């Protein structure tokens, strides 16, 4: 019993760190645009498909694949930004959201046309056996994921608080109007933040694909759902909140999967979000 709890907690933290990367990307985009990008996950999925394509054609190694994944995600993200968000900067949030959904459908079909099988193998992040520590199995992939999430969060903090670009980005997040009046080019900063978020998403997609050793078109919806859930649980718009929400989501999922099964796991995750929104503290739902 206790052993199960500890093992589940370890697994939950590993899943939570993947969610954290996704949620941080989502939050960055929401921060500068005040819009939800439903196509965030599908752009990542397309990046992973590009990497799979490179792997199948040239047999490239992991490092190259990671690079391809990140680059292709940034390109796909840029396409989404140009078509869905740049034109609606001052206009309707609903139109931008529906447009991003339309591109989701599009990217999914592009991926399926390029690689039509339902499932493709992805090279494994780590081939060896999991580490055995005092009776608990620790997957090396999980450690890499946790490490990557920590490094990305630290790097992001540095970028946001120690560079000129970061100051501009935070100014835009705080108040686009004030940022514009003080001479910051809001469209350019938004574009930069969007690219940064897509790169983080691409890295998350690569890590997830390589630790599950497969890619499917479902990766798009999965990333959007998990990232969105974690971001909303963390109170929307706060980066530390997004990380906390992601870890909570990972832990709750790992424990409920073990004790209740996969269907009730998902039910519980959505119930948690619903209750938080319906009866949670007011400050969490008025940002």
């Amino acid at each position, binding site marked *: 019993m206790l052993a199960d709890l500890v093992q589940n907690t370890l697994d939950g933290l590993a899943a939570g760190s993947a969610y954290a990367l996704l949620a941080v990307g989502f939050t960055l985009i929401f921060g500068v645009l005040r819009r939800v990008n439903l196509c965030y996950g599908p752009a990542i999925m397309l990046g992973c498909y590009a990497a799979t394509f490179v792997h199948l054609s040239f047999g490239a190694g992991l490092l190259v694949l990671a690079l391809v994944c990140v680059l292709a995600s940034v390109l796909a993200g840029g396409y989404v930004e140009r078509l869905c968000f740049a034109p609606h900067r001052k206009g309707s949030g609903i139109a931008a959201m529906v447009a991003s959904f339309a591109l989701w459908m599009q990217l999914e079909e*592009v991926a399926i046309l390029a690689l039509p099988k339902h499932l493709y193998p992805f090279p494994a992040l780590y081939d060896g056996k999991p580490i055995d520590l005092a009776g608990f199995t620790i997957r090396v992939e999980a450690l890499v994921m946790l490490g990557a999430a920590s490094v990305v969060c630290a790097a992001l903090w540095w970028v946001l608080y120690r560079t000129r670009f970061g100051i501009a980005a935070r100014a835009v997040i705080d108040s686009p109007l004030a940022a514009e009046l003080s001479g910051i080019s809001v469209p350019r900063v938004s574009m930069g933040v969007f690219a940064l978020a897509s790169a983080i998403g691409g890295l998350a997609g690569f890590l997830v694909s390589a630790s599950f050793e497969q890619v499917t078109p479902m990766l798009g919806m999965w990333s959007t759902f998990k990232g969105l859930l974690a971001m909303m649980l963390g109170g929307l718009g706060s980066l530390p909140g997004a990380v906390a929400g992601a870890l909570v989501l990972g832990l709750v999922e790992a424990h409920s999967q073990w004790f209740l099964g996969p269907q009730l796991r998902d039910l519980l995750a959505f119930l948690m979000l619903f209750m938080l*929104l*319906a009866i949670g503290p007011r400050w969490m739902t008025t940002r």
Partner: protein
Amino acid sequence: MDDYAVGVLTNIGLFGFLAISAYLLLLAGEMSFGQQAFFGVGAYSGGMLTAMGGWPLPLAVVAAMLLGALAALMVALPTLRLRGLYFAMATLAAAEMARIGFELLHWQVELEGEQTGPDGTQGFRGIRWVLENGIEPGAYLAIIWLVLAMVVGVVIALERTRLGATLRGVGEDPELAAALGVDVTRFKLGVAAAAGALAALGGVLYAHHNTYVEPRNFDIMLGVHSLAYALIGGLGTVFGPLLGVLVDIGLLEGSRVFQGYRMIVFGGLVALLLVFRPRGLLDERTVIWLRRRLSSLTPWR
């Protein structure tokens, strides 16, 4: 008409109910990601009443609509205080809970030597009231479009009354509407209930057209599609959402020209369309212009 055309036209009618349901909420200023849940509630409850309970379809339709309205009220009551994105996410969470609820629903009875009823992820087979009562696909199509025409008629009539003006007023500026004496929360609850009933109506008719439903039919994709239909077609008139359905199912799925590329075409078209017409093809301005043109063409007015 060949079977294929009947099938496409039937689907246009069926998803038309869902699109109008999303449209009503959008007019009231709320974006729901969860109307598919009430479509599902209608499909499951209506199907259970006719296939397991032996009810006639018209009675089952009424019951399903009441249940849909009730379910919509249950979701709307705790969530309507939320704004914009938070409301969208809360309705999404509720709808996914409903979908998982359908997955967990196992309730079968033995009828004429066959197990009938919802069987979790295996779906719910044997909703055959329409077949058993000798209604041909063409006749069922006519029934669906007749009901849809009635709904459209009611919405048009309501939009011409004070109620319609209030609806758009609440959507445009809730504070102003409240200052003018409208009880915004109660009004929105009413709209949510009506939209839920409408979605359930579409759902029960859908279940009896397909004779088979499964939880996956009512996932988030259906919900976002219905939102997209309303927004592509336009928020100026109730014909807008129907135009949206027509563009997607009629033009792209029905024509078979774009087979394999349907979503690439559709996705790109929608995104581009929204750049130039963020409130859809038939937006308010276009509708007013069209009305003027029409009334200038009719000399007896």
